[in-house]
């Protein structure tokens, strides 16, 4: 039918719209020329990117922050999801919802104001630790959502059976529930990793002078002008993130 064909073409066009910009970016990261005229295939920009010390340090910072923040928020968020599954806690759910709908710029400056003002008493300067705290703050909501979604389909009687057989509530969680929701927890952790790794807005507000993250470097480079080095770095980021997210989604489907 013509209508089916038209609909399929339309869908393809929109999907192309969504994917082409990234594909173009990736393709031109292999361009030996500097501009958008194709001059030949080259890995030159990747080599430049990987050799850049500032980039390397920023990457290390980003990885460290993401791992720390993801670890913390996964633990906190998973426990919260279990608690909320048992019985609602409106104040907590409300706060998490608030953190999701607050514009990033507002979250960033609010945390900056808090860190500067209150922490002045504790002589805590801005640095990696403040970035990690900020990342934990906004990624808990994501973790809680993913784990809660899994728990919604989880049979409460499994925990009751475990308790019936002699396990305390904690051991029932540890031995029965946690193994059952493990894929979802892993998926949530991956999500928290990506969300933390990619953040620019909040991080730029609360990072100190010597804790540059990869997004901050990319932003600075992008601001200075378009450079193929940014293309190369972007391409790597896109591939890595894409892979992590696909894995995360597969894990969520697993249950």
């Amino acid at each position, binding site marked *: 039918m013509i209508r089916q064909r038209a609909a399929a073409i339309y*869908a393809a066009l*929109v999907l192309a719209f969504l994917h082409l910009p990234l594909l173009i970016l990736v393709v031109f990261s292999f361009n030996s020329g500097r501009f*958008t005229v194709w001059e030949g295939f080259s890995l030159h920009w990747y080599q430049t990117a990987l050799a850049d010390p500032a980039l390397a340090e920023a990457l290390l910072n980003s990885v460290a922050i993401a791992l720390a923040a993801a670890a913390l928020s996964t633990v906190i968020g998973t426990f919260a999801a279990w608690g909320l599954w048992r019985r609602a806690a409106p104040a907590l759910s409300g706060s998490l*919802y608030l953190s999701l*709908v607050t514009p990033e710029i507002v979250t960033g400056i609010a945390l900056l104001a*808090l860190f500067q003002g209150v922490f002045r008493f504790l002589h805590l300067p801005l640095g990696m630790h403040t970035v990690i705290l900020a990342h934990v703050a906004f990624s808990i909501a994501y973790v809680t959502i993913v784990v809660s979604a899994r728990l919604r389909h989880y049979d409460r009687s499994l925990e009751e059976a475990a308790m019936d057989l002699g396990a305390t509530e904690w051991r029932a969680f540890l031995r029965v529930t946690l193994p059952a929701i493990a894929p979802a927890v892993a998926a949530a952790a991956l999500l928290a990793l990506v969300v933390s790794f*990619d953040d620019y807005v909040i991080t730029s*507000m609360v990072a100190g002078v010597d804790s540059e993250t990869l997004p901050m470097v990319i932003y600075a480079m*992008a601001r200075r002008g378009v450079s193929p080095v940014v293309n190369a770095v972007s391409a790597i980021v896109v591939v890595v993130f894409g892979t992590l997210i696909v894995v995360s989604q597969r894990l969520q489907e697993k249950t």
Partner: protein
Amino acid sequence: MNLRAWFLLPARVTALLLIAAPLAVMLVYSFLTRGDYGGVEQPFTVENYQRLADPLYLGILWRSIWLSAAATAICALLGFPLALYIARAGNRKSLLLQLVLLPFWTSFLVRTYAWLFILRDTGLVNTALLKMHLIGAPLPLLYNEGAVLLGLVYSFLPFFVLPVYATLERLDPSLPEAAADLGAHPAAILRRIILPLAAPGIGAGCVLVFVPCLGSWLTSDLLGGGKTVMLGNLVQNQFTTARDWPFGAAASMVLMLISAAVLLLLRRSPVLPAGGGAA
């Protein structure tokens, strides 16, 4: 204290200290006065909010609202047919859905930068058009409201598609068939059966696009240059170059108020099923 209380404790402490407290601080700051070296000091005042009524700032507010509304409208127009197509796609549904969502999950910064790469004077579009001799000089495609709008639509289109798809997917397929059986043309079926039943999803999709657009910062910063200033840029400005924290705080509060109003509007309206949107 029972186990549940222990499990909720870390999240509660984090929420209190890192979500609620910062916003409370902002609220207080919005009523204070700017300090000489940045920062805040007494006395308390409502001057910051009054300043926002200045035509300059109202213009920024208006621009933010209309850009967000325009982006929402475009996302709705582009996204609805796509969502409908995917909902009817049978066993390719999840693949198509993943394709829609995948770009979203790769870096937001990178995706915005991509348009920078494509639209600038020496970018892909201009280079191609110049090469084909369709234009004599590069078109100023970047650093204007149009570029920002494009960036917003590109970034948040998946946010519209997802809830609409979810609603359409649950639509009983026998309903459009019954309508056809009763003599309705496809256009009428769309208008009288599908659209009304999809309304909750459409409502949720609009909110999920509008609210982030309203509070966006990166898109207008990178694609708008210094010229297109949205509320988010105004806020950030006050905390960096302008060093007027109380004013920035007030602008933030207004931004949050408008977002909250939009969210509440949708929760209350019959358009949305009880329980709110997609998250």
